[in-house]
């Protein structure tokens, strides 16, 4: 399982934190258990992002909540199920060396400030603010589509922590670059792009929507070109580190996102077919790529596409 990267040729710098490689777990996938985080770390992951945590525990929607659509694409409306800030803070309380970003979701400044105050003494790298979950009312994208609310929430988180803050943006009604700019101006250090896209699937036999919430978010292969476009545009216009996310299922996708401008790349849906070992496989392949391309460090490819 060990990756021999003596020259740290895969290490990347995200704001002021260094990751041993650019692979990250996308929020919403497997993100509730410290033991699972440790397993992913043994699989050579660069960093994990937890499931989005809210002040109070949330049960989420009834099943079906996740639908494999075939072709490596998925539809979900899990409904932000999570154990809440207090239980989750106990879950992570013994974390020593796992690089963790906690994803936060909420409706008001008060909720975000309560969460950051609780989490900030834990051994974590930083935060990712979820402003883009497309299927829960008064949270996620409904906040992200309101630039004034985004400004206030990011400022509140900034006031309560000195750790890096990433804001996860999605394709909603507000232009993704505008939203990213508001977040950066309010004190965010990193932008994560993108989240799932609002989508739906209907069973033609019963003529019924399959998700209990009817509408959910599309992830996986189908959305990768949209993610690449957003990362390219955001990283070109704003001089901040961007974390790419959306439809990454192989090392080639990681490289493509980095060429588009991503400093690190999140991986999620593909775990449904490949399991946690995908991180080890991708990391090994990235090392090969770096050697074949004669790069000192993988960071050399970040944003190369901006030239064209």
């Amino acid at each position, binding site marked *: 399982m060990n990756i021999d990267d003596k020259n740290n040729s895969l290490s990347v710098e995200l704001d002021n934190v260094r990751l041993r490689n650019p692979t990250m777990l996308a929020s919403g*996938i*497997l*993100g*509730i*258990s410290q*033991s*699972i985080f*440790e*397993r992913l770390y043994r699989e050579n992951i660069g960093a994990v992002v937890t*499931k989005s945590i809210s002040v109070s*525990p*949330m*049960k*989420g929607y*009834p*099943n*079906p*909540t*996740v*639908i*494999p659509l*075939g072709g490596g694409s*998925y539809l*979900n409306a*899990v409904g932000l*199920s*999570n*154990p*809440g800030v207090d*239980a989750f803070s106990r*879950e992570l309380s013994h974390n020593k060396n796992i690089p963790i970003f906690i994803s936060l979701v909420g409706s008001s400044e008060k909720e975000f400030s309560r969460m950051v105050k609780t989490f900030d003494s834990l051994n974590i790298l930083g935060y990712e603010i979820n402003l883009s979950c497309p299927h829960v009312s008064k949270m996620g994208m409904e906040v992200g589509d309101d630039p004034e609310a985004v400004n206030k929430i990011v400022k509140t988180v900034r006031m309560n922590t000195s750790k890096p803050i990433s804001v996860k943006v999605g394709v909603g009604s507000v232009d993704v670059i505008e939203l990213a700019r508001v977040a950066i101006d309010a004190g965010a250090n990193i932008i994560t792009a993108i989240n799932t896209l609002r989508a739906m699937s209907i*069973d033609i*036999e*019963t003529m*019924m929507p*399959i998700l*209990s919430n009817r509408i959910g978010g599309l992830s996986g292969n189908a959305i990768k070109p949209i993610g690449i476009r957003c990362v390219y545009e955001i990283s070109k216009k704003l001089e901040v580190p961007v974390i790419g996310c959306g439809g990454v299922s192989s090392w080639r996708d990681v490289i493509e996102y980095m060429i588009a401008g991503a400093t690190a790349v999140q991986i*999620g*849906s593909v*775990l*449904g*077919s490949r*399991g946690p070992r995908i991180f080890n496989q991708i990391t090994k392949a990235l090392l090969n790529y770096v050697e074949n391309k004669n790069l000192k460090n993988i960071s050399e490819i970040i944003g190369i596409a901006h030239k064209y």
Partner: protein
Amino acid sequence: MHTSIDTRRIVRIEEIVSETPTVKTLVFKDDLSYAARPGQFLMVWIPRIEEIPMSAMINFKEGYAAVTIRKSGVGSTALFERKEGDVIGLRGPYGNEFALGKNYKKILIIGGGTGLVPLLRLASFAIKKRLNITMVLGARSKKEVFFEKMARKLLEPVRSSVKICTDDGSYGLKGTTVDIMSTLLRNNTFDCVYTCGPELMMKGVVDLANKNSIPVQASLERYMKCGIGICGSCCLDSLLVCQDGTVFNGKQLSKMLDFGISYRDKDGQRICYS
């Protein structure tokens, strides 16, 4: 045409067998479920109500399979109330399977309640290998005993024995499945013990097998949202029941801090078995 296990199949319930007042078996035709390996599960969609993981039950007709449901939560109650002719959706089968070692000759199968479902499928595979099978069916009392006839019919072609036990002694032997296992181990050697049922029962079986250095495998159950390694709801320590299980061996189980102790509820909080 080859159908992917992820493709949702809509199937009609062709037959309903009442096993006890709170347990029913729903029979349907589905090639992928028919071919399920022992220990694998289906994600069963009750349209507009729920989707729940269910072990794939055998049926004697070619191309057919079933699910056996105990009425308890929203999803299982809705499934329990389906009528013949109603439709349900299926995806899967997912997960790993009970392994039958190449040199195994004599095995012990211990189950309780709906935990017998994957074990009957296991027995159907073990019969093809002409193994000597001892099967213990446990229940709290006489009215909770089911699948006895099916187990006897299934095991008829091979050297086998079916033992029924009830906690209160109202039917069969008096005692728990672990008590019966303990007695059996005194006069028999088994190549492997297979178990599925209430987790505390499985914990007892696994501990006793480990203590006697007998290989043991258990099929575990957890709440699941996705069934395919995405949601993380079914984690025990660092393993996922859906993707790494449902079957785990004695070595894995003896290291698991969650086994027989705790599970995750719908919001992901760790809850202890009382």
